[in-house]
């Protein structure tokens, strides 16, 4: 799994770290970690709804933040969970643009074993870095 939940980083919230060979992979693994914070088995989410959205930011860190905020937004606004993402990433000048087609379905408590609701992505110890052709992120979610 390209993400790992951390036991001793945050007492009340959920901390995880993710990796990816590319920024796109990192974005995807973080999105899966956010969903996996809320739902135990990601494979129980069927591919019945496609949601298109896009985000842009001045750097990869803010791009990741805004992308994850969308996942949380759709969970409340449309009760949607996603487990597959088609990502189109293009740096345009100084702006990073991300087009997303997210695949998933409506939350169904009978089908999707629940863990804990995510309120927000926090900036506390929020870190993204690229090193030796690998991307890393360290994130704490308010739950």
């Amino acid at each position, binding site marked *: 799994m390209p993400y790992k939940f*951390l036991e001793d980083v945050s007492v009340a919230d959920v901390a995880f770290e993710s990796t990816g060979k590319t920024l796109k992979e990192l974005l995807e693994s973080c999105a899966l970690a956010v969903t996996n914070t809320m739902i135990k088995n990601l494979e129980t989410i069927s591919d019945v709804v496609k949601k298109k959205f896009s985000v842009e930011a001045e750097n990869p860190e803010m791009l990741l933040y805004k992308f994850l905020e969308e996942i949380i937004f759709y969970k409340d606004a449309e009760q949607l969970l996603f487990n597959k993402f088609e990502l189109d990433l293009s740096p345009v000048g100084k702006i990073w643009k991300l087009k997303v087609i997210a695949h998933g379905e409506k939350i169904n408590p009978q089908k999707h074993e629940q863990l804990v609701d995510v309120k927000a992505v926090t900036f506390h110890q929020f870190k993204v870095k690229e090193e030796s052709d690998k991307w890393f992120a360290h994130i704490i979610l308010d739950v």
Partner: protein
Amino acid sequence: MPFGHQTFKKPEFKKISDVVWEISPSFKKNMRVPVRIIATKNLVDGMDLQVYDQASNVATLPGIQKYSFVMADGHSGYGFSIGGVAAFDINDNGVISPGGIGFDINCGMRLILTNLTVNDVKPHLKTLVEKLFQKVPAGVGSTGFLKISKDEFKKVSEQGARWAIDSGYGWNEDLDRTELNGIADWADNSKISKRAIERGFNQIGTLGSGNHYLEIQYVKEENIANKALAKKWGLFPNQVVIMFHCGSRGFGHQIASDYLQVFLNVMERKYGIKILDRELASAPFNSTEGQDYFKAMACGVNMSFANRQVILHRIREVFSEVFKQDAENLGMRQVFDVAHNRASLETHDVDGEKKELLVHRKGATGSYYPYRSEIPDLYKEDGSPVIIGGSMETGSYLLVGADGAKETFCSTAHGSGRTMSRTRARNMWRGEKLQKDMEQRGIFVKTASFSGLAEEAGGAYKDIDEVVEATHKAGISLKVARFIPIGNVKG
């Protein structure tokens, strides 16, 4: 070692009294005031070191007065620690910070009386918990039974619990027994985003998840500490009460997220505020951004009051149905509704001078000594009722604000406070087994998530009795009664 791993320095604690400990401003560069922890030595020693790092970060913020406080239930969070209290002089560049309030704006507690005894309720306990579980939705992305338009929801965000009462969900007197009478009247919904409304408009009447719960409890005679006040407030031995804990749901979470980003953009560039954690993003209270957030926060406060008001209505419906009597006949009056995630504009005496302060309480409860203007008339001469919720396995408390709270800007603890991460707790307990064990001990639980149940195990929390004892000894909130759980709906 994860690359995000950080270690924290252990401070030296100066003993002020058995329950007051101080960290000097020399602990960290740019601290403007000391940190004070209101806790027993044992609790101070048990807190994770990041608490002191976070409380000392808060001590560097502009306009902070006297001390950056940590209450007895303190544990690390983001920005402020949980159990964090800080007051800023709004006439001396004092700031407002979403990280000092929390994403769950106006998260709080409500306590409801009944005239039923534990023996009346026990035969119906399972039915009650199961019906409550159905009527008060909990869990990830849950939606409420109220189907209202986004325009109507905007009214909720400005009218709070009043909107719920006017819509038929509650009694007029409930407002007399709610902080701010259930309405943050400075709310302005032109200051909230469309996204915030989209996240929250279908969530009125829902608990949420994590540490949110709805509990059926009772009070034993030996657990009534202040007999006269307990009687005055409607408590009697073996009485069943209902307590619940929830907030402003996705609406409040989005308001906080929106303004965090606004503040990060202007804080240093426009106002020259330097911070040690991005979750402490701040703006002067008297700035356009600061005022906008204060008015938006009030919308979150109102959603939360309306949410708890509608949940109260559903609870009354369930009891009425099960006991085949009106809620009025069952004596289902509200004792109080208190917030523990809010910033509040209050006047306090600072070294002999009256100052207008913005008091941030994050995982800390307002605890007002008698005759403070913040106390509803009904409780004016007693002091404000303080509701402190314990873990689902142990117990909870009703206390009363007292004179000692003059030292803490009228603030006290809010719960028992976690001692270990959710991820660790999940590896230590199994939700299904915990549910069976609790049932054998006379606590019937229904949960939206067994994993979530394991995370809320009593062993993952501090000792509630010790937390409350510390606030009692410090004289900031005094014990009235302790409640024992018998039924629990876990979000």
